[in-house]
């Protein structure tokens, strides 16, 4: 009996014949060469954006958040939108490094490091927003529960409080996970680097890694445990972010589907951002044979799945708003779709639900320019999703006398631009200072690196 191997053969995770030293060279190249003009140009752009945001933020500190467009009834607007957006961006990293690891998806190795780094940067960016939104960020220390002289305790019933714990835990665990994965790579870099500060730094950071069997044993065990610990974090962080809205009794916010819907949306937006960045990285750093089209296709499949889950949630919310028979719920949803913010709503629907449906077609999944357009639309759509949820639910209060509109000011927009500036500055610095792909892990998935368990019955395979 002969089997057709078309359906069982795994596509090679690293294309072309690649030697271990070639992998070292390719991945270490961005760190060992002087950055080109493009990189400096991009960095200049990012830093300019960052500085613009910093100026807007400085003025906000000086004059207060009255500079923003927030008002009554729209008390939450760009700040919380940006917070949720950036937290969401961070979700791809943990999903890739923890959940895909537990599910034995070996293709994750090529994209895990970058996604994890983006997680950390995104969470750092996100963390700014709740702090500045409180208006007096120098008092934010009271968010941490500690026995102080004033006997001031945070409100433990508030999901905003849970956010403090969830996000800081997430940042810590993501960072530890990222660093553990970097240790073998630091050792490789240490051995490649000639004496100097760089060598000293790599020596310290590699924690005396010698690639011994025992080291690897400990490493693998730690990695597995951290993956197990991070998995609930993928769910918990955005679940709690969704609680910020869903525990309230505001129509449009209070609905039970919010937790899984937010998590799916977060993974969706995270993959959108990872894809956006990696499409450039693989090109610029000549890593097309490591981050292959197959990787992008698989990410597109995840985008299709999560985008459809988000679509299910939109539909469900709309249906139940009608089914509930609650006139306030009904009004909020009809107002979302046809009210003054209808443009934002339909941007969200088309970017998050309609365009990703193109990924049903294999040709489109594998077409990189089309993918790039769609993933950028996903980023846009997911930002608008949070905007729609927050602003449209608030701008029509229960009494028509307290209806309002939200119009962003220069400072709102400036801080949003600044957050992108911060994120991309960090990404650009990372791309030049640390290995953007795990050197050690990618070596393990090169064809021929692992003993195969396949019993060869005939010479076909």
């Amino acid at each position: 009996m002969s089997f057709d191997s078309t359906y069982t053969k795994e596509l090679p995770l690293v294309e072309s014949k690649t030697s271990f030293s070639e992998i070292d060279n390719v991945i270490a190249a961005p760190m060992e060469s002087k950055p080109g003009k493009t990189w400096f140009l991009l960095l200049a752009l990012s830093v300019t954006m960052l500085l613009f945001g910093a100026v807007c933020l400085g003025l906000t500190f000086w004059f207060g958040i009255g500079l923003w467009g927030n008002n009554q009834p729209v008390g939450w607007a760009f700040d919380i939108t940006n917070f949720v957006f950036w937290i969401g961006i961070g979700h791809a990293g943990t999903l890739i490094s923890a959940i895909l690891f537990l599910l034995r998806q070996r293709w994750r190795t090529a994209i895990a490091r970058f996604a994890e780094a983006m997680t950390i940067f995104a969470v750092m960016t996100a963390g700014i927003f709740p702090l500045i939104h409180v208006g007096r960020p120098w008092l934010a220390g009271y968010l941490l529960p500690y026995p102080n002289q004033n006997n001031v305790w945070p409100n433990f019933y508030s999901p905003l409080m849970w956010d403090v714990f969830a996000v800081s835990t997430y940042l810590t665990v993501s960072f530890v996970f990222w660093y553990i994965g970097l240790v073998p790579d630091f050792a490789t870099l240490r051995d490649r680097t000639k004496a100097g500060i760089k060598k000293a730094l790599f020596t310290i950071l590699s924690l005396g890694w010698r690639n011994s069997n025992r080291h690897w044993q400990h490493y693998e065990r730690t990695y597995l445990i951290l993956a197990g610990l991070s998995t609930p974090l993928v769910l918990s962080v955005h679940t709690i972010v969704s609680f910020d809205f869903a525990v309230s009794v505001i129509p449009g916010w209070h609905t039970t589907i919010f937790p899984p819907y937010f998590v799916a949306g977060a993974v969706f937006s995270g993959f959108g951002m990872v894809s956006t960045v990696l499409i450039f990285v693989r090109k610029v750093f000549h890593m097309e044979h490591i981050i292959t089209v197959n990787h992008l296709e698989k990410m597109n499949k995840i985008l299709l799945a999560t985008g459809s889950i988000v679509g299910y949630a939109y539909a469900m919310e709309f249906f139940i708003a009608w089914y509930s028979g609650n006139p306030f719920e009904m009004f909020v949803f009809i107002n979302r779709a046809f009210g003054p913010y209808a443009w934002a709503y339909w941007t969200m629907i088309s970017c998050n639900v309609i365009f990703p449906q193109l990924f049903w077609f294999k040709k489109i999944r594998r077409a990189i320019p089309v993918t790039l357009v769609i993933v950028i639309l996903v980023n846009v759509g997911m930002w608008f999703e949070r905007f729609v949820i927050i602003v449209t639910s608030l701008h029509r209060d229960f009494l028509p006398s307290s209806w309002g509109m939200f119009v962003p000011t220069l400072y709102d927009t400036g801080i949003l631009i600044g957050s992108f500036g911060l994120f991309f500055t960090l990404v650009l610095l990372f791309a030049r200072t640390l290995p953007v792909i795990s050197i050690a892990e990618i070596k393990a998935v090169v064809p021929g690196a692992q003993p195969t368990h396949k019993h060869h019955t005939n010479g076909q395979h």
Partner: protein
Amino acid sequence: MEYIKKALPDKFAKTGWILLVLGIIILAAAFAVDSRRAFFDYLWIYMFMISIGVGALALVALEYLVGATWSTPFRRIDEFLAAIIMLLVLMVIPLFFGIHDLYHWSHNEIVSGDAILQSKSPYLNMNFFTIRTIFCLVVWLFFFFMMIRNSEKQDLTGDPRLTKRNNIFGTAFAPLFVITLTITAIDWMMSLEPHWFSTMYGIYYFSGTMVAAFSVTTLFAVRLKEGHYLDPKINNEHYYSLGAMMFAFNTFWGYIAFSQYLLIWYADLPEENFWLLMRWEGSWKFVSIALIFIHFVIPFLVLVGRSQKTNPRILKIMAIWLLFAHALDLYWLIMPTYNNAGAPLGWQELAFPFLVTGITMVVFNLRASKRNLVPVRDPKLESGLNFHL
């Protein structure tokens, strides 16, 4: 290694038929005594059979959709169990006679005096309800026939194009599965309390269905292996993924259940919280608390480790445990509408265990008697058999 088909023992079929007949007798007696209660029991049975039958078909589809190979040696179990879908068509008919006992939105005189029910009547009315039920059954039947036919044809021809065709069917079924399951959950269970609503409800039932489907697959996989009916190459490592999936979806259920509970509890709106308060009346309190431990805490603690997921004995016990948990969950969802004061538990409810095990065993046996227990010429089988952790 060639697979040699071994017939299931007569005892299996006999036990199945005895349980089935006993179940029917109990149910018939229950109808004779108190038809309203019997309809609720019957709905409970029907929903459980959807979980098993449609859930099994979803697992078949899922394997094709994601291109999994580890599950190929076990796929026939789900293909056989999916045949329950054919029986669902028959099983649903008696339920239509009980619509008035089960759903008070079906009484026109009640609806006309209730503004909320009136506003819902474009959705909750007999015609549309029937259309939706038929739609769901047609979708399930169609994909059942297409996918199972292709898979069985492959046993004879070994044509790999059949796998490709099933990849398409599996992919198309995935969204339809979620949509039909949501419709089923809202129509047959959520509308028992027509004033109540929860956007999470469809996902809640979905998560329970997946737990039940993976559990029943695991149970059969372990039992069949113990009796040497499956390929001898299957070893303990093959069970790892089954255990992991059971664990993952059960934890997912816990997450969904907790989220739904917390949001309703926290907002404490009378239009929502009465549904939970109903489940806190009298002895329902104990069912609610038991559900937390039986469906989540205990399975979580037992299955969290790696060695448990490769231990067939533990997996077998946990599979039965989780099937019981899913039954308890459905009981908790359905029965409070029948009796709000306390959990009804009498001889009538015995129809449930007899019938669900009876139907499952009989259907499995009927399907297995003429078919291979292993998809012998599936191109993915070899890779599945050579699975290593």
